[in-house]
C-alpha cells in the first residue's frame, strides 16, 4: 500500500491520471493551479498526456470537450470565477453531452483568500443539470476522480468536482491504486446532430439531458458518498468538507441524525427521510446556503426548524471553520491560552522588492499627477497589489480583462484620461478582444500592458502573449504603430518613462504602452531574462 503526501489539488490530478487521463486543461488561478501543475509534472516524466496551459478557461474547456469528442478522458480545471469565463462552453457541453469522460474540477474560494468573490460552483452544476461530487478529504479527491470519469461516460455528461480552498491547499496522505487504468483509444463520436446545436438539434439534446435527470437522481440516492444515519430528533446535513468540522467537534457517541452530502443532485428521498425524522435540522455547507435554501424553500418547513447560514447560526458569508461549526452545534468554546490580540499591525501582501510593476506604477503616478484624482482601471495579477499603499496607483479590479472594457466605457461617457493597466497574461486571457474593440472604435484610451513575461501571482506559469507575440497582437488590432510604445520599467529610466506616458496621455485616440521587464520570481525560477 503506497501512501503519498498530496494536496487536495494534487490528489485530484493524480486520481485523474490513474483513471486514464489523456489531457489536462486549464488557466492558472488560486486555489486550482496545482491540479494542472501536478499533471503537467507527471506528463513531463511519463509522457502521453497532453498538458499545456490554455489562454483562458473557455479555451481550456473547449479543448477538453474536443478531447472528449475524440473519445479520450479529459480534465479541465479552474478556479470558481474561471467557470464564468468558460460558462458558455460549459453549459452547452451539458446539452451536447460528452463522449470520452469529461471532468471539470472547480476550486471555489470561500472567504476570498485570493479571489474577488466566493461564488458557489454547485449552482453551476445544478444549472447545467450535471452531477457534482464534493470531496471531504484528500483521499476522496483521488477516489472521486475514478467515479467522476465513470459517471461522465455512463451518462454522457460532464461531471463537476467541486473543491474549496481548504481542501485544495491542504495536504494529507493518499493511498493510490496499484495499477492505473489505461487511457481510452481514439474513438471520435461522429453523431453530428449531437454536436451541432442548431435549434432543431439543441431541442432534442436538451430533451435528452432532462430525461437523464431521474438517473442522475437515482445515482445520488444510492451513492456511497451520501450516507444517512438516523438517531436523535436533531439532525445535521454535512456537505463536503463541512463533515470534517462536524466530526472534529462532536463526541463519538453523539445522538445527532446525520446526512453526509457529497454527490449531487440533492438526494431528495434521503433528505425527506431525515426531515421526517427530526424536529430540528442544521445545515453545514462551505459556500452559499444552497442546500439550506433548497430545503427551506420559499415558505419554510412545517414541523422542522431549519438552521444554518440563513438564520444566523452560521455567518452568511465567509469560509466555514471548526469554530463556527462548534458554535452552531451549541457547544461551548474550548479554553485557550490567550484571548485574540485585538490590535495587531496588519501585514498585507506586497510587490517583491525590485518588481518591475513598482517602477511602472511610480512612473504612471507621476505622469498622472497633473490630473485631478485620476482613475486607473486595472485587472487581476500581482499588479493588483499596486492598489495598496504605498503606490495606490490602480482603482479597479473586477474580472479578467475588464480594465480595458471599463476604460473604454468610461471614455465613451466622456471621461478622460481613460487609463487601463493590465498584465501580459491577463491580456491574452481577456484583454485582446476589448482592445480590438476599442481600437476599431477609435476610443481615446491608454492601455498599459505590464509585460513581466509570466503569470506571476500564481507561480510564474508561462504567459501566452509576452514579448514579440504581445507586440504583434497589439499591432494586429489595427492600432497606429506610432502609439504603441515600449518602455523598460527601471528606476534609471523613470524620467523618460514618465515622458512617454505623458505623451500618450495627451494623444487623442487609442494608445498602448508596453512596460516590459521580467518578473524577478520568473527569473529566479526559470532563468528567463
Amino acid at each position: 500500500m503506497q501512501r503519498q503526501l498530496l494536496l487536495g489539488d494534487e490528489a485530484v490530478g493524480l486520481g485523474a491520471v490513474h483513471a486514464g487521463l489523456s489531457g489536462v486543461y486549464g488557466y492558472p488561478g488560486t486555489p486550482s493551479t496545482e491540479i494542472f501543475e501536478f499533471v503537467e509534472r507527471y506528463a513531463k516524466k511519463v509522457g502521453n498526456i497532453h498538458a499545456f496551459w490554455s489562454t483562458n478557461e473557455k479555451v481550456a474547456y473547449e479543448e477538453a470537450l474536443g478531447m472528449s469528442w475524440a473519445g479520450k478522458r479529459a480534465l479541465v480545471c479552474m478556479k470558481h470565477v474561471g467557470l464564468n469565463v468558460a460558462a458558455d462552453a460549459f453549459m452547452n457541453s451539458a446539452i451536447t453531452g460528452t463522449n470520452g469522460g469529461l471532468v471539470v474540477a472547480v476550486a471555489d474560494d470561500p472567504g476570498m483568500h485570493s479571489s474577488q468573490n466566493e461564488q458557489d460552483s454547485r449552482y453551476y452544476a445544478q444549472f447545467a443539470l450535471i452531477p457534482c461530487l464534493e470531496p471531504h478529504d484528500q483521499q476522496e479527491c483521488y477516489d472521486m476522480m475514478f467515479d467522476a470519469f465513470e459517471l461522465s461516460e455512463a451518462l454522457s455528461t460532464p461531471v463537476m468536482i467541486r473543491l474549496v480552498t481548504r481542501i485544495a491547499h491542504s495536504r494529507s496522505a493518499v493511498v493510490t491504486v496499484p495499477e492505473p487504468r489505461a487511457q481510452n483509444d481514439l474513438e471520435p463520436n461522429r453523431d453530428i446532430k449531437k454536436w451541432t446545436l442548431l435549434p432543431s438539434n439543441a431541442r432534442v439534446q436538451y430533451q435528452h439531458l432532462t430525461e437523464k435527470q431521474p438517473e442522475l437522481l437515482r445515482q445520488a440516492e444510492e451513492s456511497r458518498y451520501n450516507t444517512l444515519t438516523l438517531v436523535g430528533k436533531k439532525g445535521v446535513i454535512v456537505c463536503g468538507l463541512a463533515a470534517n468540522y462536524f466530526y472534529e467537534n462532536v463526541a463519538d457517541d453523539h445522538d445527532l441524525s446525520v446526512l453526509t452530502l457529497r454527490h449531487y443532485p440533492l438526494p431528495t428521498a434521503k433528505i425527506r427521510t431525515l426531515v421526517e425524522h427530526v424536529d430540528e435540522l442544521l445545515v453545514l455547507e462551505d459556500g452559499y446556503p444552497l442546500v439550506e435554501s433548497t430545503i427551506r424553500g420559499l415558505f419554510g418547513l412545517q414541523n422542522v426548524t431549519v438552521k444554518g447560514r440563513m438564520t444566523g447560526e452560521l455567518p452568511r458569508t465567509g469560509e466555514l471553520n471548526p469554530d463556527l461549526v462548534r458554535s452552531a452545534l451549541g457547544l461551548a468554546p474550548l479554553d485557550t491560552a490567550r484571548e485574540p490580540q485585538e490590535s495587531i499591525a496588519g501585514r498585507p501582501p506586497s510587490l517583491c522588492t525590485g518588481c518591475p510593476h513598482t517602477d511602472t506604477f511610480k512612473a504612471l503616478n507621476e505622469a498622472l499627477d497633473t490630473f485631478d484624482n485620476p482613475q486607473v482601471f486595472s485587472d487581476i495579477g500581482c499588479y493588483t497589489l499596486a492598489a495598496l499603499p504605498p503606490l495606490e496607483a490602480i482603482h479597479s479590479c473586477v474580472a479578467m480583462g475588464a480594465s480595458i472594457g471599463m476604460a473604454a466605457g468610461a471614455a465613451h461617457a466622456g471621461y478622460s484620461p481613460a487609463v487601463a493597466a493590465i498584465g501580459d497574461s491577463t491580456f491574452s486571457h481577456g484583454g485582446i478582444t476589448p482592445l480590438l474593440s476599442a481600437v476599431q472604435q477609435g476610443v481615446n484610451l491608454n492601455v498599459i500592458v505590464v509585460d513581466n513575461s509570466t503569470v506571476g501571482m500564481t507561480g510564474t506559469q508561462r504567459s501566452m502573449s509576452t514579448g514579440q507575440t504581445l507586440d504583434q497582437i497589439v499591432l494586429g488590432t489595427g492600432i497606429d504603430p506610432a502609439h504603441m510604445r515600449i518602455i523598460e520599467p527601471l528606476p534609471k529610466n523613470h524620467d523618460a518613462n514618465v515622458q512617454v506616458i505623458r505623451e500618450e496621455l495627451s494623444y487623442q485616440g487609442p494608445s498602448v504602452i508596453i512596460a516590459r521587464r521580467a518578473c524577478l520570481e520568473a527569473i529566479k525560477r526559470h532563468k528567463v531574462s
Partner: protein
Amino acid sequence: MQENIILAGVGGQGILSIAYVVDNAALDAGLQFKQAEVHGMSQRGGAVQSHLRYSDQPIHSDLIPLGRADMVLSVEPLEVLRYWHYLAPDGWVVTSVTPYVNIPDYPPIDDLLEELATFANLVLVDAGQVARAAGNMRAQNMVVLGAASNQIELTEDQLLKHVETLFLRKGEKVVEVNRRAFSFGRAVGGFYRGLNDRGVGPLEALALCRRLDPASIDPVHAEAWASFAAAEPNKLREILAGDGAIACDQVTALA
C-alpha cells in the same frame, strides 16, 4: 497522541519548508496527518500560516480549532500574536525573535518580546544570528524548527532525514547549511529551556543565548549557566553587556 502546530511567518520565510519536513517525518512514522497551507496572494510578503496536525488516530478538520493548538511555531516574533488564541492553555510558543520589518507600523521589538515572555511554555531564539552562524540567513526556518524539535513527538533523525530530502536538489552545500541550522537551533532551543526551567527568566535566557557562539551551544551546560546566573547575577550582567562571542563551555572557567 495528537499534535497540532500552527506554523507562522511572512511569505517567503519558508513556512512550507518546515511543513514539508514535519509532514514527511510524520508520514515515515506511520502517522495520520493533515496540513493546510496558504498559496496565492499572501505569499508576496504577507502574513502566512499553516495548520499542521498529526496523530496516531484519524484527523478530521484540516484547520486546528481555537484552543487545540499545542504549539505556535513562528519564524517571526510579531506573527505569534496573530495566532496565539489558537493555543491550548498549556500550549507552547516557539519563535524567532528576529523581526521581519516590511510594514511601517511594526511595534517596538522590546514591547513585543515582553509580551511573548509572558508565556510559560516558551522558546525564544534569535534565528537570524543562529542561521548566520550556520552559514545562510535563509536557513532561519530550519533554526526555528530545530529549536521546536525538542518539544514535538518526532525524533531528531526523523526530522533531519527530510531536511536532507528537501534541499537535496539544491546541492550538498545547501543541505549541509540547513542541517547545521537545524542542529544549532535544536541545541539553542534545548539550552534555552534548560536555563528557563532552572529559573533564568525568558529574556535573560535569550540574552545569554545571544552572547554565546551559536556553534558552541550545548544544553549540557545549561545547568552550570543557570547556577552561575543565580550565584553571580552581577557578573552575568557584565557578561551580557560585553561583546564578542563566548563559547558555551566557558561557564566552567567562570564558575
